[in-house]
């Protein structure tokens, strides 16, 4: 676990110095929102209906950009090989990168989600607070699969181009559950339905984290 924290510190320090990933996620995420607005030109009622989708499309698309950048940085200057020389469990490496990727996404989302809610005239403190569990669980699921798939994609000749093709089909259940849960919060519907979607998200997070922890050593071998 200490090894994982060391990786997290390394990733966060790198990001503090280069400031590449979080601004990229933020700017691209905001752009997605603007493009969506031109695509749908939602009325007041429509805003409520499409905002959950816009939030998660922005997170997914911008997140893919951030994840592939994070994996590409590991390949550049053979940084990953240096890390692999350290006598730590490969799963710690995965956990560290996962936590760092979650952190990058969450920091960007803290700005992005309120921005979307303001732009769609849905902002309210109650909504923001109630959205937190959904955003966190959805982000973990997205990053859990994204971290391992980004490393796999970086190992192929297609590099980052392959990531969305590998990742999007796999995270569709996360996406679906997150959009549904977000919609329930925005429309202020029953907590019971919200819990059932959050439970699905939690199950996915657990499955992806456990499976990826076991499989990550194969991805980074040799």
């Amino acid at each position, binding site marked *: 676990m200490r090894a994982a924290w060391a990786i997290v510190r390394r990733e966060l320090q790198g990001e503090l110095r280069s400031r590449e990933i979080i601004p990229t996620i933020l700017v691209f995420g905001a752009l997605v929102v603007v493009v969506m607005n031109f695509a749908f030109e939602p009325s007041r009622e429509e805003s409520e209906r499409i905002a959950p989708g816009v939030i998660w499309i922005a997170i997914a698309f911008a997140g893919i950009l951030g994840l592939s950048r994070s994996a590409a940085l590991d390949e550049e200057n053979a940084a990953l090989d240096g890390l692999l020389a350290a006598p730590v469990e490969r799963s710690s490496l995965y956990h560290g990168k996962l936590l760092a990727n979650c952190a990058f996404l969450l920091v960007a989302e803290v700005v992005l989600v309120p921005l979307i809610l303001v732009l769609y005239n849905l902002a309210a403190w109650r909504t923001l607070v109630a959205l937190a569990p959904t955003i966190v669980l959805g982000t973990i699921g997205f990053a859990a699969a994204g971290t*391992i798939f980004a490393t796999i*994609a970086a*190992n192929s*000749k297609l590099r980052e181009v*392959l990531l969305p093709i*590998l990742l999007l*089909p*796999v995270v569709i259940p996360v996406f679906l559950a997150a959009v549904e849960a977000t919609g329930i919060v925005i429309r202020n519907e029953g907590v019971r339905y919200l819990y059932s979607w959050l439970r699905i998200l939690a199950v996915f997070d657990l499955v*992806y984290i456990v499976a990826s922890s076991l499989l990550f050593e194969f991805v980074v071998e040799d």
Partner: protein
Amino acid sequence: MRAHRSLAPLIWAAGLVVAVALYGAFLYAPTEKTMGTIQRIFYFHATAGMMGLFAFLFVFAGSVAFLATRNLRWDRLAEASAEAGLVFNSIVLVTGPIWAKPVWGIWWTWDARLTSFFVLWFLCWAYLLLRAYVARPARRATLSAVVGILGAIDVPIVYFSIRWWRTQHPAPVIGGGDGSGLAAPMMHAFLAAFVGYALLFAVFVSLRGRLAEAETEVDALAREIRDEGRSLS
């Protein structure tokens, strides 16, 4: 070069049973009361769907076995199954809308089961695309095994999505609880289609597996020639 048993008996058996299944589905089985003739597509739609799911089970098993043993045989099984799975999943996605249009009045609906199969189809593509863009055989086998395993985790989701999400797709007709079940002749036709497709699946996987084996040998020979040339020059 390893000597292979002839695949001819398997291929003949597959051809024969598929022919029997065609007879069973179009002539032997009675016309369904409410849906009419179009229902006959069921015999191939449902069985292709089952093959598509089996294919991913094989990809999963082949991937796990490869990571455990590092024997490329298992990688070839996974690769061949993924390609066969892509064929059967494509059959599902084509026959589905043809059946849905007259019965439901729509070509497509984004319900859980249809969408899951669509996702499965994309997973097949993702797996095969990754394979196409990793050159070194051992590395390709390892990376695609990881993707095969992570992707196969989606297969139970496909199956259980019937129960998880509310869906417009009919509940399982066979073994789906009270009120489900097929008339005996329909069941016979269904079983014939199932066995026919299973044999066809076996033919695809065997042929593709042998092709992959030949590819590996050619790759190794090409490398040998290259190295030979380098040492000469």
